[in-house]
């Protein structure tokens, strides 16, 4: 884990509410693995929490990191306003990342919207020694525009409005694929509901499934206990024990809000 002030090489609008940022980060670019993330500092001091953003791609040779992000609130809006040459402070890489140590397997990657972020590097890594199929879903053409940035062949694009690719959703496509052929592993990242459906589908088909979770984070390093989830092995931290988990490990995907105690 490093803490670096990095220069922005490029920060461009991709489509829908999505942006792509490239920074030069000598140390982190060498260390970062697919599925890890960074805590990016906001410049406006009214925002004291860093924003967790996944590693989209890391090019160790050129020392370049890529982030693919959606403008959701004021923090990500601030990021979108940054210019080439501006500096930002990034902390990472953090978390464990996806399991990329496999070989000779048939895998499917399912990405929805912003969930495409961690899958570019993953697809590239897995592609080296495995057969990779990629399902990319989004609201419309703008939301899947990013796939042009991916270096993979086998890609199925699905959009809600059918403006590009298949009209429909990722889960339907996944079910089709699983019905037609057998696979060893599914990796997914996207909206909460989509991931649950993917995990469920994988479970039904007896295929192992890795999901990349999101929780509000303060520290990103297991120091604040803010991002806990219940797993078969007890309370785990999304930031340090994840954000990638085996779907079957998670016990309480949608913990009901219920007042506990106001202790820190």
């Amino acid at each position, binding site marked *: 884990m490093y803490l670096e002030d990095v220069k922005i090489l490029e920060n461009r609008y991709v489509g829908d509410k999505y942006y792509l940022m490239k920074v030069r980060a000598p140390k982190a670019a060498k260390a970062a693995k697919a599925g890890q993330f960074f805590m990016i500092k906001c410049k406006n001091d009214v925002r004291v*929490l860093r924003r967790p953003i996944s590693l989209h791609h890391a090019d160790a040779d050129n020392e370049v990191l890529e982030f693919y992000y959606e403008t959701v609130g004021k923090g990500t809006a601030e990021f979108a306003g940054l210019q080439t040459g501006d500096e930002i402070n990034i902390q990472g890489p953090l978390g464990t990342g996806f399991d990329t140590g496999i070989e000779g397997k048939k895998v499917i990657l399912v990405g929805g919207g912003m969930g495409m972020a961690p899958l570019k590097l993953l697809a590239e890594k897995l592609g080296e020694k495995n057969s990779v199929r990629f399902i990319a879903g989004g609201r419309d053409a703008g939301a899947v525009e990013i796939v042009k940035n991916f270096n993979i062949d086998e890609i199925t694009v699905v959009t809600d409005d059918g403006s590009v690719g298949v009209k429909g959703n990722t889960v339907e496509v996944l079910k089709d694929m699983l019905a037609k052929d057998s696979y060893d592993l599914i990796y997914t990242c996207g909206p909460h509901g989509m991931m649950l459906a993917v995990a469920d589908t994988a479970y039904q088909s007896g295929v192992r499934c890795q999901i990349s979770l999101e929780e509000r984070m303060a520290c990103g390093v297991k120091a604040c206990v*803010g991002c*806990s989830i219940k797993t078969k092995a007890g309370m785990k931290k999304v930031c340090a024990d994840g954000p990638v988990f085996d779907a079957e490990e998670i016990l309480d995907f949608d913990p009901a809000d219920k007042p506990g*105690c106001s*202790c820190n």
Partner: protein
Amino acid sequence: MNRLKTSFVGLDLNNPIMTASGCFGFGREYKDYFDPSELGAVVVKGLTNEPRDGNYGTRIAETPAGMLNCVGLENPGIDYFENVILEEIKDITSPIIANINGKTVEEYIEIAKRVEKIDAVKAIELNISCPNVKDGGMAFGANPEVAGKVTKMVREVTTKPIIVKLSPNVTDIVGIAKIVEANGADAVALINTLLGMAIDIKKKKPVLGNIFGGLSGPAVKPVALRMVYQVSQAVNIPVLGMGGISSVEDAIEFFMAGANAISLGTGIFTNPMLPVEIKEGLQKYCEENNLENISEIVGCIHPPKAVEEKKEKTA
């Protein structure tokens, strides 16, 4: 020359900079950024006897220049702390301070007894901000009588220094500080978090799973400084100040207000190097201002009368 050496509740600290409980895990979590032995002391996450899963739902919310949390004291319990964590952090040379919690006076006593037997723990931070289940759910620290009682009972079962950590959600923080002093506290720590909330207007519900949470970060600094200023003039035990410290200047403000040592919390999330930057900044400040030791500015803004009175009493 190290101008930051500090004696605090009988501990010889290399500097007066500690970590705020709950913001630095158990001391290992930030080791990639700096060596925790650089700190004056490490105050660990709040501990309870039994492991606790903490609260359901969202635990973190950002607010203007601050944050809310409702972790709900998730912690692995004192057994795991003693058997596993202490082993993992045995290389840390700074004193380890245990933040202890309970829902009843009995729970406090039990954990204090356990901690008493752990040599590696050099002092106890007694957190009295938790809701007191037996007495209607108000925090131990909100009721002077109960605050005094729990301090006294813990005092009876431990020989380790006790730093009582006060809740700021009270009408009269000075009264509470005096009572815990009278009941055997070796120091007071303040402030814990201010009770607050945030609302997700799109989802039409509170952001936090627990509805309420504790406010920390720069936003609370003025309240924290005021309380440190008031309390440090009213008691004759040292004060561990905290609440929103995020720069060397903030740290100096706390010393001037009357804190003998400080804790860093939320500021570390924003800037993981903060403890080191403050340590170096304070050393430089002392050098530039010809201070032999940072303690020379502690309480320097107190009215002359208060300073005199305190000198007499502690002499």
